[in-house]
């Protein structure tokens, strides 16, 4: 009897030691850099977000069960030819990078992964809301040190190998790598218009110009946020980019 008691005690202790891979993000509101008219604050409902970006190891597990998303099988509609280009073969990611973020994945493949684990991609606003959090504050953008840190991350070139997701910056919610690792897909990455699309011009729309105008009067440390929006609007859903991964959100689609 006593032995059983000790067993349960150990089990409880060990489950305390293992952190959940999902983090609950409480509801809040913030003024997004773009996509809000007249710079109004937007409400973000509570949702759950994966603590880390999805790793090569996790994506490999997904590919075992869903062969149609393997490099050799995926349809061109859903990914360009560079899809998983750094993988050793159909099921094995780059050597020694099991716990590093998966990159070179298309938006379609990222979504399929999310669906397979009962989740979805976070919306742009959800992602940006969580990205505002520093190690100590939900609105870390008020902290000059945090802004400087982000700026430094964006200025740094990509490493040859991505570090393990656990070894990255952790914010106040306990979510890792919102900055300082890879870019991430969001569900509505294609929600900003581009002016003169028909002329093949890639300059961003009025929305962005307005924000850009606003930015010129602001601290240049807001530049990383601007970069993220500009980067997203340059993407197409079948693109596979070497420094673009994703993470999973759970809960009602906003």
């Amino acid at each position, binding site marked *: 009897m006593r032995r059983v008691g000790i067993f349960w005690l150990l089990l409880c202790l060990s489950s305390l030691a293992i952190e959940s891979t999902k983090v609950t993000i409480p509801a809040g509101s913030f003024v997004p850099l773009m*996509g*809000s*008219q007249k710079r*109004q604050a*937007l409400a973000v409902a509570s949702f759950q977000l994966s603590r880390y970006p999805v790793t090569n190891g996790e994506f490999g597990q997904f590919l075992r069960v869903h062969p149609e998303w393997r490099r050799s099988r995926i*349809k*061109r*509609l*859903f990914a360009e030819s560079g899809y998983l280009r750094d993988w050793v073969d159909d099921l094995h990611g780059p050597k020694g990078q099991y716990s590093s973020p998966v990159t070179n994945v298309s*938006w*379609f493949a990222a*979504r399929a992964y999310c669906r397979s684990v009962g989740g*979805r991609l976070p919306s742009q606003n959800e992602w940006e809301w969580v990205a505002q959090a520093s190690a100590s504050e939900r609105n870390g953008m008020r902290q000059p040190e945090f802004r400087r840190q982000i700026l430094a991350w964006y200025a740094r070139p990509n490493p040859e190998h991505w570090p393990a997701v656990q070894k990255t910056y952790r914010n106040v919610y306990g979510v890792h790598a919102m900055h300082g690792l890879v870019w991430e897909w969001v*569900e*509505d990455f*294609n*929600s*900003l*218009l*581009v002016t*003169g*699309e*028909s002329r093949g011009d890639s300059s961003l*729309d009025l*929305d962005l110009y307005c924000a850009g105008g606003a930015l010129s009067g602001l601290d240049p440390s807001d530049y990383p946020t601007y970069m993220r929006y500009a980067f997203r*609007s340059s993407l*197409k*859903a079948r693109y596979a980019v070497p420094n673009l991964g994703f993470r999973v959100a759970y809960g009602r*689609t906003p």
Partner: protein
Amino acid sequence: MIRKTLTVCLTIAALALASAAPLSETSLYNLESRWSDQNGTVHRWADLRGEVRVVALIYTHCRSVCPAIVQQMKETEARLSPAERKRVAFLLVSMDPEADTSDQLRHFAENRQLGPNWLLLRGKAADVRELASTLDFKYRKNSNREFSHSAMITLLDADGEIVDQQLGLGDGSSERLRALSKLLAAPSP
């Protein structure tokens, strides 16, 4: 009797196989979502195979760009010969499935006098996003329930391949007509 039945069965099977040649990898009809039309009938993309199709994403309470897009599509239709018209279908997909119920889509089709070769579809928000991503169509809902969105008309061949895409409100109807005639002139598969 048995042999006769067997022959009929085999013929049917052969016919079914012929029309079910695998889609090319880049066909839009590889999408697996389900949609309902203005009459509440459910469609899958693969069911839409077989007809040349002019496609646009719109929302019915739009007062700016969408009416112009629908008008351009109607003009394209009007400039086709009666024989050509029979072989071209028109598809409007709502980017606002919350507001655009099947009833709303039917009213819209009636008000705009869209013929029986016009299909108006609504689907799940995530499926609209997927379709839009496939077409490189950009949109977002604004706080005032209006949408900011690309102006785009896409021409699909009978197998769901994008043949022509017009971006912006410039009048691309001549180019679209040329592309359409070319498609219709090609021998049917």
